[in-house]
């Protein structure tokens, strides 16, 4: 059974929502914000490619081309360039994973990680090429076969043994990150191996500055390379370690209450300080670590399911997350004890008002994905009648926080649809319940002006994919689509 809440209540039977002609012009309240955000995203793209070009240019500026006259020189030069480019990509990967607010605010954390993953294989190929071509090139120059040359490099040239170790570590990291391999090992194993990246980068640094002369003392190239390495390290240190520690100590979060809202779903309320700083982040997620035995080493990405509530004058208050048992450590959360301390990192993600580009907004959620939408609904700006919320679930019980969302929609003048029921088994690409799907409903029927709206989608990944496709088919641009992935 479906219910819909709109300015004119329905009769209880499924009715087709009436079509209204879409207005020709929008007021463009978010135009400026959107333009600036895209500019920042483009600037990041340009900066990334420029850094790659710069790493090669500094070799060119050293007169590198002049050494390519001979076969050995050419091979060696290719090896050097491959190494420079590979290291630059590695630094970019580190920066993308560093959770830098500028990057998060421009493209979003999950897209940043997507680029991070994409750079993995190219960077490894470049580093492998670097090692191979250098061994061949130097060997050609000295009349040695590559293996002997490699041995000579290991034995005779300082810091080269570290470089060999570094390459081995890189190979280990990338191989275990390949999807095929990753699925065969527990997450914790993959994570530990991935941490070896730091060791791989650190062991690769000495030989870059001591072998080959490009970064010899006194060259401007040395300053540049030092600067980018140090900057990357500083960013990692600050944004991944110092900032979270500061946030944890600043907010002093403690579990107050754990209440059940549905089978397998609980609200976890926490008290803390200076919660005003966490306000306004509806839809963004934090990484939570509950400091209890057996739980502290599981990082959980969850969004707030409501705005923080202030109860005291100094920002003392409460905040809430809604969690479902999804396995892998989540089950224990259902049994959290009062008084457990919580370490928090964040907020992260672009699933928020910062991503808005249109005046209208559509929020489509399923299952526990409804949670961030609830928080977004509370804070994101829209005029009455300009927002639509679609909640999807197998039954009413799965429309978590349904009462709260209903109340919010009523207060703010948003249109709400409940879409319950199983999927049509014969249509794997459908996001609608079977009845609606067979009746021929499409997304535009629920939101006629969807092409002029920001569309926020959150739910299981396959279902979300179907929704996004339906939105694209209805004329929504990529810039207007906002999707929070829970499975990274």
């Amino acid at each position, binding site marked *: 059974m479906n219910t819909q809440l709109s300015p004119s209540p329905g009769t209880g039977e499924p009715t087709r929502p009436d079509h209204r002609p879409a207005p020709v012009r929008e007021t463009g309240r978010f135009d400026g914000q959107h333009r600036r955000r895209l500019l920042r995203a483009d600037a990041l793209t340009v900066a990334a490619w420029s850094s790659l070009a710069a790493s090669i240019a500094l070799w060119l500026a050293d007169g590198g081309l002049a050494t390519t006259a001979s076969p050995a020189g050419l091979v060696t030069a290719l090896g050097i360039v491959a190494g420079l480019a590979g290291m630059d990509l590695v630094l970019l990967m580190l920066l993308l994973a560093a959770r830098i607010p500028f990057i998060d605010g421009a493209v979003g954390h999950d897209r940043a990680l997507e680029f991070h993953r994409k750079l993995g294989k190219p960077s490894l190929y470049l580093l492998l090429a670097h090692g191979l071509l250098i061994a061949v090139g130097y060997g050609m120059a*000295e009349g*040695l076969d590559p293996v002997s040359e490699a041995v*000579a490099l290991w*034995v*005779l040239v300082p810091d080269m043994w570290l470089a060999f170790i570094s390459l081995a570590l890189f190979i280990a990291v990338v191989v275990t990150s390949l999807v095929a391999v990753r699925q065969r090992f527990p997450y914790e194993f993959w994570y530990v191996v991935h941490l070896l990246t730091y060791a791989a980068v650190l062991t690769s640094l000495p030989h870059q500055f001591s072998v080959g002369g490009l970064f010899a003392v006194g060259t401007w190239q040395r300053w540049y390379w030092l600067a980018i390495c140090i900057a990357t390290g500083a960013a990692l240190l600050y944004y991944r370690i110092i900032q979270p520690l500061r946030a944890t100590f600043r907010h002093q979060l403690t579990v107050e209450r754990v209440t059940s809202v549905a089978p397998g779903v609980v609200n976890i309320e926490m008290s803390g300080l200076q919660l005003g700083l966490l306000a306004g982040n509806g839809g963004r997620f934090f990484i939570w670590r509950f400091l209890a035995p057996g739980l502290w080493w599981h990082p959980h990405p969850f969004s707030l399911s409501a705005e923080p509530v202030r109860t005291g004058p100094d920002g003392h208050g409460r905040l809430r997350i809604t969690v479902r048992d999804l396995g892998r450590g989540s089950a224990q959360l259902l049994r959290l004890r009062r008084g457990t301390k919580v370490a928090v990192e964040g907020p992260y993600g672009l699933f928020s008002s910062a991503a808005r580009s249109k005046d209208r907004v559509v929020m489509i959620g399923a299952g526990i994905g409804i949670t961030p939408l609830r928080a977004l609904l509370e804070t994101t700006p829209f005029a009455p009648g300009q927002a639509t919320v679609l909640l999807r679930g197998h039954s009413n019980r799965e429309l978590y926080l349904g009462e709260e969302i209903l109340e919010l929609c009523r207060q703010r003048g948003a249109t709400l649809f409940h879409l319950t029921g199983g999927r049509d088994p014969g249509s794997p690409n459908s996001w609608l319940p079977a009845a609606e799907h067979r009746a021929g409903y499409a997304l535009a029927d629920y939101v006629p002006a969807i092409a002029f709206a920001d569309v926020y989608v959150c739910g299981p990944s396959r279902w979300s994919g179907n929704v996004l496709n339906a939105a694209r088919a209805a004329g929504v641009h990529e810039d207007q689509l906002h999707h929070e992935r829970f499975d990274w």
Partner: protein
Amino acid sequence: MQQTSEPTHRLRARTFTCMGTVISLTVPTDAHKPPQAAADELEAATAVVERLFTELDSVFSLYRPDSEASRLVRGELALPAASAEMRARYEEAAEWRLLTEGAFTPERPDGGLDLSGIVKGHAIREAGTSLLALGMANWCLNAGGDVLVSGSPSPGTDVPWWAGIVDPADRRTLLAGFPLGGGFSAPSFAPAGLAPLSGKTADGGTRVALATSGSAERGDHIWSATAGAVEFLQVSVAAADVVTADVLATAIVAGGVSMLNRATVMWDIEALAVRANGELLATGGFRR
């Protein structure tokens, strides 16, 4: 045998034959010592050195069928089961092979092991240590043309020993000379095997060893690393320790000009090389 020295004849020498060549030990007469004591001292020193050489020869000589080296070459003995001395010399030679990138190698073309290239230098080095241990600070040891000195032929002064270098074309004339020792009293024996790759000792006067290798040499241990005609007839290397000088001289004869340039950069040495056509290449220390 020694004769009573005349007042103006200040050097004494003793010789013996070993390793197929002649080893000479020359010491300045100590005016303060009674002649008999000085003679005894020289006698004792020579005996020590001779024993050292003989012992090493008995182990490493490939001309003795019963030496450990011969047994090794014949396959009766495996290297891991060889004596500590054998393995130590092999390890030292292998390190030099790596450092000279194959120009110096203990492996003969037929695969057999010939450590004679390193053993003679090692023997001289050990002999020098023994002489110092005996309390002798001024001496000159010449083993088949490789020279190691300590102190000065005029004790108490900084006058260096002068070593002549024969002309390979006419062994009765001297091509050049080189000062050894003097100035600083004790030779510096580098740790067994390796001279430092980098870090120059800026002073040029502490060379105490001069080793010479030639393609006209008796030794079988030079396998030419460069295809074709040998580039150098003879190479002399002066260094702070005798094994370095000996190995590098051998390596340069085998490796040619490329090895010469590599050696002068990587090690703190002076070198004089005689080309097949008689032309000379020399580092600055050989220049007048």
